């Protein structure tokens, strides 16, 4: 029941997007998100949509799979749309009782919805095509310059990769615990808010205990293999730019330049 969450999951297949250096994909995601917030006409979004569609096609991840992950954020999306629709001042189009909808409100609400949807799909492409390990590797390398100001980049990256690695494990565990408690007559689905919150106790206590136990075991296993942080550590698969990554960057900057030009200045 919990396995439907695809946000932040990796989809295993072999495509040119999968093979790209994680740094290209990181930069791509950041540039894509920035570009989304630059546009102030619909053509910019058309540009972004085309780019997104091409990347999705190339990544060989089924579109259905991505949409499945969107279900969890539909509530957030609706909330943003509703607030923007009703709370933006400007030229009134129509009003019911004390609430009025403005022309500006509609515009912002529509743009916001498009922006958020694309933002989530865009960033989920990154996580769907990059293994968590690869992703943190890429982050560590591209944020390496922060070491100069004494930021423990390696440690932060390690913590992130461990956190990401634990998500599916804990989800599976939650599923098992839920089943075990349902088998004892626990009810997670009915009752008011307080009753439901109370019903979570039999789920959360075993979950926390197992998370602590797993963390402890992992720490032990890491120490047993002499892990002492980033200093002097080498990698089995160091990240090296290849020709395809250069092509990736070129396409990326081309997209950025064209979409900004179209979305900001052309019309």
């Amino acid at each position: 029941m919990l396995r439907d969450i695809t946000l932040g999951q990796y989809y295993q297949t072999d495509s040119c997007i999968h093979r790209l250096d994680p740094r290209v994909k990181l930069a791509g995601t950041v540039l894509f998100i920035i570009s989304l917030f630059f546009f102030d006409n619909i053509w910019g979004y058309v540009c972004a949509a085309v780019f997104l569609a091409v990347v999705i096609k190339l990544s060989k991840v089924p579109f259905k799979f991505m949409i499945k992950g969107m279900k969890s954020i539909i509530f957030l999306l609706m909330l943003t749309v509703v607030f923007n629709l009703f709370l933006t001042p400007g030229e009134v189009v129509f009003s019911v009782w004390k609430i009025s909808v403005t022309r500006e409100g509609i515009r912002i609400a529509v743009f916001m919805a498009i922006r958020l949807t694309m933002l989530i799909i865009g960033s989920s492409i990154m996580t769907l095509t990059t293994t968590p390990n690869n992703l943190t590797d890429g982050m560590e390398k591209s944020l390496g310059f922060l070491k100069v100001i004494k930021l423990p980049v390696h440690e932060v990256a390690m913590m992130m990769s461990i956190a990401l690695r634990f998500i599916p494990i804990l989800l599976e565990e939650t599923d098992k615990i839920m089943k075990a408690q349902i088998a004892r007559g626990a009810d997670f689905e009915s009752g008011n808010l307080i009753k439901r919150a109370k019903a979570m106790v039999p789920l959360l206590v075993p979950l926390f205990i197992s998370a602590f136990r797993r963390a402890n075991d992992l720490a032990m296993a890491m120490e047993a293999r002499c892990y002492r942080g980033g200093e002097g550590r080498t990698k089995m698969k160091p990240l090296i730019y290849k020709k395809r990554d250069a092509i990736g960057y070129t396409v990326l900057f081309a997209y950025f330049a064209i979409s900004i030009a179209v979305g900001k200045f052309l019309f």
Partner: protein
Amino acid sequence: MSLILDHVSHVYGDDTALAVKALDDVSLEIPDGQFIGLIGHTGSGKSTLVQHLNGLIKASSGHIYFNGKDIDDDDFKKKELRSKVGLVFQYPEHQLFEADVFSDVCFGPKNLGLTKKEAELRAYEALKKVGLPDDLFYQSPFELSGGQKRRVAIAGVLAMKPEVLILDEPTAGLDPKGRTEILEQISELRRETGITILLVSHSMEDVAEYVDRILVMNKGKLVYDDKPREVFKHYKELEQIGLAAPQVTYIMHELKEIGMDVDVDATTIEEAAESIKKAL
């Protein structure tokens, strides 16, 4: 009073690239009062099968009947089914959460809507039935040993007074002594209460001695469903699917080969000893 599975199949991850057929057209009947062993290698679908029996997962196709009613019917009360078919999962850590053992065992009966007094009475009875010493009743369940935790977990389900008790690998991770103790306790429980028990295990040694009937699963299919001695006759086929007959079976077959007139169908050490004595 029985459970019937009628051509039940289950597919995990339907409509994705990673679809796995965990159960493939399984039909069987579990009548009242039987002690059944369900054996299969890891990933053979035995855990999936037992989760169907109390409605935790829904069959992709096929029907399951409890006392003549289809459990997937809209007006069927799943909660009632879960109190009648008790399922104890493999890891007790997944269900223990209260500050002390006693209140943890009370959780199930309380969920059935019983009063505090009734729930406590049932918890006390259940803990007695699984043979947990009195002085552990008010300890934290997390401080107990593996075998004791397992007893508490079983008591937690027993306190709901199920008609069918399903135990998913109750002996996994226990030392040989703890294993025999738990199995003895379960068979004792069955003698006392006449409850139907389905014991899931991957070890033939575990179940051979106690059960009336063995179900063998392989790759989602039910391959054997018979009395232990009949199933062990296929010991060569069992080996091919990664299982083994009890050691006794091998010894008896070897003795027979070197010309001793022994009963190769003996399933327990006692039977084997008797048969060897006779042959000598």
